[in-house]
């Protein structure tokens, strides 16, 4: 769960973290919208924005290495879909433009998630009157993602330690059972959480 560790590191108090989360979120959204509205082929503008983002990243003490690592993870999808435009009238110019714009937007999102804790985003969502059920689902989900991911990992490991016959179908069946078990445990946990919430006066 790299995202979690990235978040923990963002506890450093640079000027970026001191800006209210709503501002950071709005700025990210505005910037992304601006980028996607840019026409194709404006290479200098793209480069300028990229430069600005690098400067912001440095000022916010975000490690470029970690940014590049996360970019590298998601670039293949962007390249793949963008490649379709190679076939169209826009050709190479269109392909490179989409690639540039999409990567810039991704850069912005990575900066946002590295400098903003999800709990702050939840607070912003609450402030803009996001429906209660969605907010509670997001909050509980965020709380238990790591718990469940670890549980799933442990169960998978336990299964693997007792699997000697490594056929693909067997692996699928095992993993499928692990996921099923994960759901069963999650529902039981949900019951206990309900009890804990009631025990503390939830109405």
């Amino acid at each position, binding site marked *: 769960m790299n995202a*979690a560790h990235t978040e923990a590191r963002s506890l450093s108090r640079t000027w970026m973290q001191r800006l209210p989360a709503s501002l950071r979120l709005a700025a990210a959204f505005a910037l992304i919208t601006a980028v996607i509205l840019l026409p194709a082929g404006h290479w200098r503008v793209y480069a300028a924005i990229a430069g600005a983002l690098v400067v912001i990243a440095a000022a916010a003490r975000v490690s470029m290495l970690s940014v590049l690592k996360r970019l590298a993870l998601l670039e293949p999808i962007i390249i793949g879909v963008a490649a379709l435009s190679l076939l169209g009238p826009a050709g190479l110019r269109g392909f490179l433009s989409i690639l540039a714009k999409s990567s810039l937007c991704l850069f912005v999102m990575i900066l946002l998630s590295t400098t903003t804790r999800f*709990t702050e985003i939840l607070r912003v969502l609450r402030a803009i009157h996001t429906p209660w059920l969605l907010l509670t689902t997001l909050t509980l989900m965020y709380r238990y993602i*790591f718990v469940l991911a670890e549980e799933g990992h442990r169960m998978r490991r336990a299964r693997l330690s007792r699997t000697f016959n490594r056929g693909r179908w067997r692996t699928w069946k095992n993993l499928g059972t692990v996921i099923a078990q994960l759901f069963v445990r999650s529902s039981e*946990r949900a019951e206990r*959480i309900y*009890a804990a919430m009631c025990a*503390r006066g*939830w109405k």
Partner: protein
Amino acid sequence: MNAIEISDLHFRYPDGKIALDGISLSIPEGHTVALIGPNGAGKSTLLLHLNGLLPEKLGQDGRVKIFDRPITAKNVDEIRRDVGLLFQDPDDQIFCPTVFEDVAFGPQQLALGDQAIAQRVTEVLDRVGLSGFDDRLPHHLSGGEKRRVCLAGVLACDCRILVLDEPTSDLDPRGKRQLKDLLRQLPATKVIATHDLELVAELCPRAVLMDAGRLIADGPSLHILADEPLMLQHGLEKPHILQHLHPHV
């Protein structure tokens, strides 16, 4: 007036199995009582009755009285302000994304102002030795820290009765020591279900032994713990620490 008064409590699981078979128990205010017994004795089930989580449909007969008030569907919310329950798995209890929010959950239900809530949370985190942990993610805490967050969450509601289910399980020796020191200082009435017989010997002057849903023994914990045949008969054993704490026993 007793803090907790249980009269002839019976409980059956949905599958028909008998969980509690006529439990009667009185606990005066300020006392610390240990609930011991083998697995499956019904300890956790009994604890869930102390704040109205069981039975699922609260009737009028009120077999459990908290400060002389029988627990009914009407007053169960009030009761929960007085009785703080600490569950066995802290991950079930800490359901908010940050420590601050989780500890603040109880006070928020009490509709205190934002400032009062923040103050209370800070105070209570201080008391449990976790100042500055406000923004921490529960997932990154150690077992002992998580338990203390749960305790803080309950203390923030000013509960007069603390009910703890296996508070020292999964703790390393340092965590256990810290928790024991903390519990020792709390003036609330305490009911502790535990397998940790050291904890019982150190902290709880009175012990109640349960097995198969029934009360087997109720008295000074040193007497019960020292009664080797009794302990062995009910899936427990005489703890070695008794030799060190009370060599004459």
